[in-house]
């Protein structure tokens, strides 16, 4: 899923960044189209923030090329790039009021006070803070501060909006609320946005495309549903969503023998030799559980039961190293309790495998 050349707004080409001998980023390329919201997702230290900082001009010591709107901006400093940034840490200027913070970028651009005021009030309206233009940052909650930071970043009509884990310091409820506001505003303003986060739910819920990074490289970039349902690597399969790793063995016909079943090996999976011991990667929703005995299914013992609202998650001991997790509707889960003997079956037609 790559954008057409004519639509490309941002093109990051073969970016690399080394800290001494350690490669924080290696041959990273990404194209973004106008108005698109792309999230970079990955574990700590995978290089996602490095990409964002390089694009924002905050890290000049990198290899590769950056093209925005057809212009090569690789060598230009951050103040010349016209990119709005919202940081993980609260970054409002403590000596300025909310309105002054929002107007700062416009003041730098010598925009007249009347236009500045009008623009800042429009943006504060957008982030639902028009009633607090004269408050100072220390009088605002964390969520309000991040909303002001968003308004401030948007005030300069940025070519690209860069969001560096802006919600990670907020509590869960506020985080959900603000991420939805970010998406609404991003769609309203049609601002091309790069969003860096380590929260899968956050990335999947607001993005047009999500890029999963690992060890300084982009493993896969795709729509959230494609990423979840059709992972191209074992890392993506195990990193995105919950994945059970169930021991199995590859047979001579390109199938995996797992939980008393034989299931085709996915074409995206790594190649495996006949007789090789592997870990089959199975999503909880691709498992069905029954309290009745089934010869073709694997018997197990329910060890944990977690109520998650409409769904209930069961942890089942199949005699393997880890518990296998199964999701089922809470309605159905009423019939099964901790300590019950159950049978488990895989419903997927194909599987990816990882090394043991």
């Amino acid at each position: 899923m790559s954008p057409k050349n004519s639509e490309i707004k941002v093109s990051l080409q073969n970016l690399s960044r080394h800290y001494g001998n350690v490669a924080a980023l290696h041959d990273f390329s990404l194209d973004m189209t106008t108005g698109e919201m792309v999230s970079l997702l990955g574990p700590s230290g995978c290089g996602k923030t490095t990409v964002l900082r390089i694009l924002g001009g905050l890290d000049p010591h990198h290899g590769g090329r950056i093209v925005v709107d057809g212009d090569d901006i690789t060598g230009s400093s951050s103040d010349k790039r016209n990119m709005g940034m919202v940081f993980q840490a609260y970054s409002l200027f403590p000596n300025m009021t909310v309105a002054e913070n929002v107007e700062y970028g416009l003041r730098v651009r010598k925009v007249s006070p009347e236009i500045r005021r009008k623009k800042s009030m429009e943006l504060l309206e957008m982030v639902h803070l028009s009633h607090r233009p004269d408050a100072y940052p220390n009088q605002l909650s964390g969520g309000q501060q991040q909303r002001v930071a968003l308004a401030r970043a948007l005030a300069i009509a940025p070519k690209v909006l860069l969001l560096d884990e802006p919600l990670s310091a907020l509590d869960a409820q506020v985080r959900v609320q603000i991420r939805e506001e970010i998406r609404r505003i991003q769609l309203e303003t049609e601002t091309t946005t790069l969003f860096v986060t380590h929260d899968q739910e956050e990335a999947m819920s607001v993005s047009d495309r999500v890029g999963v990074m690992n060890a300084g490289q982009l493993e896969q970039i795709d729509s959230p549903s494609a990423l979840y349902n059709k992972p191209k690597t074992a890392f993506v399969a195990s990193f995105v969503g919950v994945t059970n790793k169930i021991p199995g063995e590859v047979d001579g016909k390109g199938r995996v023998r797992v939980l008393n079943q034989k299931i085709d090996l996915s074409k995206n999976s790594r190649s495996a030799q006949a007789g090789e011991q592997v870990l089959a990667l199975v999503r909880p929703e691709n498992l069905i559980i029954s309290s009745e005995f089934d010869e073709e299914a694997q018997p197990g013992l329910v060890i944990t039961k977690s109520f998650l609202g409409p769904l209930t998650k069961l942890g089942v001991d199949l005699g393997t190293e880890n518990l296998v997790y199964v999701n089922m509707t809470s309605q159905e889960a009423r019939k099964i309790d901790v300590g019950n003997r159950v049978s488990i079956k895989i419903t997927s037609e194909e599987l990816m495998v990882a090394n043991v």
Partner: protein
Amino acid sequence: MKNRILNLSRYVILAAGLLFFVFPVASAIEFSLRSYGNKGHTFANYSWIFQQEDFFTNITISLKLAALSAVITLLTVVPAVTYLHLEGQRFKRIFEFLAILPLVVPVVSLAIGAQKAMPTFIQNSQYELAFFYVVIAIPYTFQSLNVGLTSIPLKTLVEASRSLGASFGRTVISVIVPAIRSAINAAIFLAVTLSFGEFTLTSLLHWETFPVWITRVSQGNVLGSIALSMFSLIGAWTLLILVQSAQNVRKKKVSKSDVEESEEALI
């Protein structure tokens, strides 16, 4: 009951602290108002100060040196410590060690070494003392600024300002300086008070400032010397209170548009 004891103990501690501070000063003031031969209290010792030759010359030079030290601190130490926080984190420990050296190096060595290191045209001017005073004050000014800069998310603020299109100069003036204003004020106060009261180095270099002059003229007048000490102490306090009040008034009165204009004029 427990709260009452706690409140009472607070007052006792406060009273003890006040006594410790006020009693010696009050005694010194009382002593400075005595007359020779125990003939009651008088302001004669204070009027004696103003009758002394070179009083105004020396107090003026000390005030000028204090002001110059403050300016040098503002122009050199503030940017240096800011730069250290932004770009030189790995050298921070070394600089923290270097910053306490003026406390360790004997003033005699410092005086001779610093004098030798100065360009000739400054060596012949009393204003060279301002540079030495800045060095002597560094252990205190560095720490004050260090604490101030550590207490704010400096890097993020700078990056936020730069990403919004501001130059580094504008970022320093519009964002960093206001964010650490109290630390800068404290550093300047320390530089001013240390320069105003410095005696040893000035005396070793054979320059005469207010503290050196006080020592010289008071050798023949004990009561006068105490009056002089009180005069300089009260003078220093008044100066600090005036500076602090001026800043508070400025903070309240100066409109944001004036600040904007001055920023734009500077950049």
